[in-house]
């Protein structure tokens, strides 16, 4: 075999090896349950939870220790969610088929998942708020949205805590960046807006709107102000 052919063979082998390594790194590993349990007062009653570690992010999400079927369903839904978030495909139909009727445990798992997502991942965080805000039927659901609207502003899409990026030479793209910076808060308020159209008298929402109005997220603040005025009567 000539030296030229050997080089081609080596290149192909290296490429195959790289692809294999890439696939291995990105493959979805099954979640690992740790035996440690703790109790929480979520949903008004004490429930036992297991700590649940996602391999890929290395973060913890709680799932109930009691019922294996419930646990399996949460695991399945989190796995689907991870697939959707990784794909960056907001038009994945499973967002509307798998996440429309969430149990209290599933909501808790999604709220835990929210906390594990980096603040800079505005679309991922907003997706979680969207899924949870679509089904508001408990005090915990409203508490979650209240915490979201009260979050400190994200001032830079690459690092929420750093100063805003250098001034633009023109302001053409500032609009969509500004909306994305406040995206989770805007989605929370859009969820409340939808809820208010069906339940205009909801004191819990008035409190959340006050929180949003006083926040430093100025698009969200203006949106909350207009909702407050619209549903005041």
């Amino acid at each position, binding site marked *: 075999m000539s030296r030229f052919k050997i080089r081609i063979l080596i290149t192909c082998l290296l*490429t195959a090896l790289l692809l294999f390594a890439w696939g291995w790194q990105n493959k979805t590993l099954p979640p690992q349950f740790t035996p440690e349990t703790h109790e929480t007062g979520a949903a008004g009653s004490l429930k036992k939870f297991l700590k649940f570690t996602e391999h890929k992010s290395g973060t913890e999400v709680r799932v109930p220790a009691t019922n294996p079927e419930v646990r399996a369903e949460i695991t399945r839904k989190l796995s689907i969610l991870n697939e959707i978030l990784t794909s960056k495909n*907001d038009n994945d139909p499973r967002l509307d088929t798998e996440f429309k009727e969430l149990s209290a445990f599933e909501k808790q798992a999604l709220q835990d998942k929210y906390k594990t997502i980096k603040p800079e991942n505005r679309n991922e965080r907003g997706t979680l708020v969207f899924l949870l805000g679509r089904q508001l039927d408990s005090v915990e659901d409203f508490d979650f949205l209240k915490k979201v609207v009260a979050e400190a502003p994200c001032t830079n899409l690459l690092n929420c805590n750093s100063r805003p990026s250098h001034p633009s030479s023109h*302001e053409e793209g500032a609009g969509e960046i500004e909306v*994305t910076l406040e995206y989770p808060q805007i989605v929370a308020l859009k969820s409340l807006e939808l809820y208010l159209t069906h339940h205009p008298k909801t004191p819990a929402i008035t409190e959340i709107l006050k929180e949003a109005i006083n926040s430093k997220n100025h698009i969200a603040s*203006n949106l909350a102000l207009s909702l407050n005025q619209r549903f005041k009567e």
Partner: protein
Amino acid sequence: MNILLIIASLTTYIMTAFFLPATSFAFTFDRNVPSAVQVQMTADLAFIKSVKSDNQSDLHKQIFGAVSGDSYSQFFNSRVTAVGLNGCGDSNAVACVIPFYDPSKMWLTKNYIKFSHPQVARMMVVFHESRHTEVRNDNWPHANCPSPFLGTDHKPIRSIWTGADLADQPACDETPFGSYGSSMIMLKNISKYCSNCSDKVKMDASIYADDQFKRIIDQKAIQDIKDDLYRE
């Protein structure tokens, strides 16, 4: 060594071409556009290509035709022939068109994948820029925002980057047919009429369209868009 490099590049090129999702968009990527950017833009355009609807607003019909993937791909293909990599002179930019260099070429920045925008927001930027390729319409130049430029709270609209007032800055449009108008009309139509979009896509499309609408400053243009898209 050179032969090895050529083979490695060729292999990468073939693998990239092989793994990219197929769409009917006709443009070519420059070789220096990172494969992750290529993959994301191709996937985003595949999403836009999949849009279906039985209805559209009048302004949408005038600009794009039907709310459908075929209309959007035809609109894009007839304007953008190549996509390259550029900083676009702005650390916050996602895409731009530089007409004097090549009016049919769109430039993406690495922010296309670095920033966590919703998918329709990325497409809004791409279609906004594609409108700027139109030489026959002087590339749809922006108008200076009015002075004072006030928001719904009657306070000056300021740039979040500089804190500067946007008054007198070329960051507005006086027509529904420019870059801001056409892209917001596209998104608002997707929000209202798309029959195979997820609820999230429709919500996002409405959020970003409503925001871009603020950049339309001519009263007749505002009224035309309200009549077209915001009347119950």
